[in-house]
């Protein structure tokens, strides 16, 4: 059902350009990886704090507030570079199971991060049960791990 749209992406100017360039894909992918480092740090710092590790002497909300802009900006870079990589090989992605695992995890991770996780991490932690904080961290780590592992595995398939 979606296949014609995926095939169309590859025929767009940007899709054609990235596909036919010998270095564009590599450069965009490098930026994607640099942003991965930043988003990884921003996510881990808060999730570790929710689990009671890392910046323990600061409140969860202080750590979350500090990390938030870095998470948002690196996520935007990830989405833009990721989309560029996708349009250059959209048909391959359509047939790739890891791609769909990644996109499903990404959708869930983004919704969770911008709703539940944001709300819980910015709230006064004394109003929260410790188990809730830990559960939020584990769900976040699991979802983002799915995004990362799925992303790496797109390159191994097909």
């Amino acid at each position, binding site marked *: 059902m979606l296949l014609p749209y995926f095939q169309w992406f590859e025929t767009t100017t940007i899709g054609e350009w990235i596909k036919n360039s*010998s*270095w564009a894909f*590599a450069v965009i*992918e*490098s930026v994607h*990886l*640099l942003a*991965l*480092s*930043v*988003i*990884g*740090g*921003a*996510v*881990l*710092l808060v999730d*570790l704090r929710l689990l009671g*590790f*890392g*910046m*323990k*002497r*600061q409140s969860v909300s202080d750590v979350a507030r*500090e990390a938030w802009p*870095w998470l948002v900006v690196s996520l935007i870079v990830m989405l833009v570079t990721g989309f560029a990589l996708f349009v250059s090989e959209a048909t391959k992605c359509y047939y790739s199971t890891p791609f769909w695992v990644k996109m499903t995890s990404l959708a869930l991770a983004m919704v969770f991060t911008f709703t539940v996780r944001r709300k819980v991490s910015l709230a006064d932690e004394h109003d929260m049960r410790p188990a809730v904080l830990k559960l939020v961290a584990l769900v976040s780590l699991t979802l983002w*791990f799915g995004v*990362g*592992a799925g992303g*790496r*595995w797109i390159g*191994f398939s097909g």
Partner: protein
Amino acid sequence: MSLLPFCEWLASTSGSIALHESLYMYPLVESVHVLTLCLFVGMSVILDLRLLGIVFRRVPASEVIDRIIPWMVGGFVVMVISGMLLFYAIPIRSYQNIFFRLKLIALVLAGLNAWTFHSGIHRKVGEWGAAAVPPKRARVAGAASLALWAVIVVCGRMIAYNWFDCDMPQRPLVKWAAGCVEKPR
């Protein structure tokens, strides 16, 4: 002195061949190597940004360093082990890869930068740790670390591309930098 004979010997060992030809182990090790970026480089970025006076300005730098370094060390150990396994699986091509060589040089520089910081200005962290913006030597160390790790990440990714491989026609400069040898193997 060339390390090529050593790499050739390493490539002939059964463990290297098994890892190189494995269907799942090699991709698994590579995935661990890439995803640990989040832990190791991600945590380094936070520490470097604190040294630059950009994040956690109200938290003493010494505390950020103390809280984050154990996680960085853990990530670094995983990085080194998985990275050595990746080299073990493909020794000759890696050794003769320009990006691999650049990555190693940048790693040495990053190590020197960390050593200079910890044996120098970090010793006086009691004097400046509470300042929102650390002294210049600490800021320079943070900026150098960010730049070097960015180079290391990008070079690491580029190793996969064969643009400058010895088995392709190359300019003399590339052949020299990659350590290509003329004898057919």
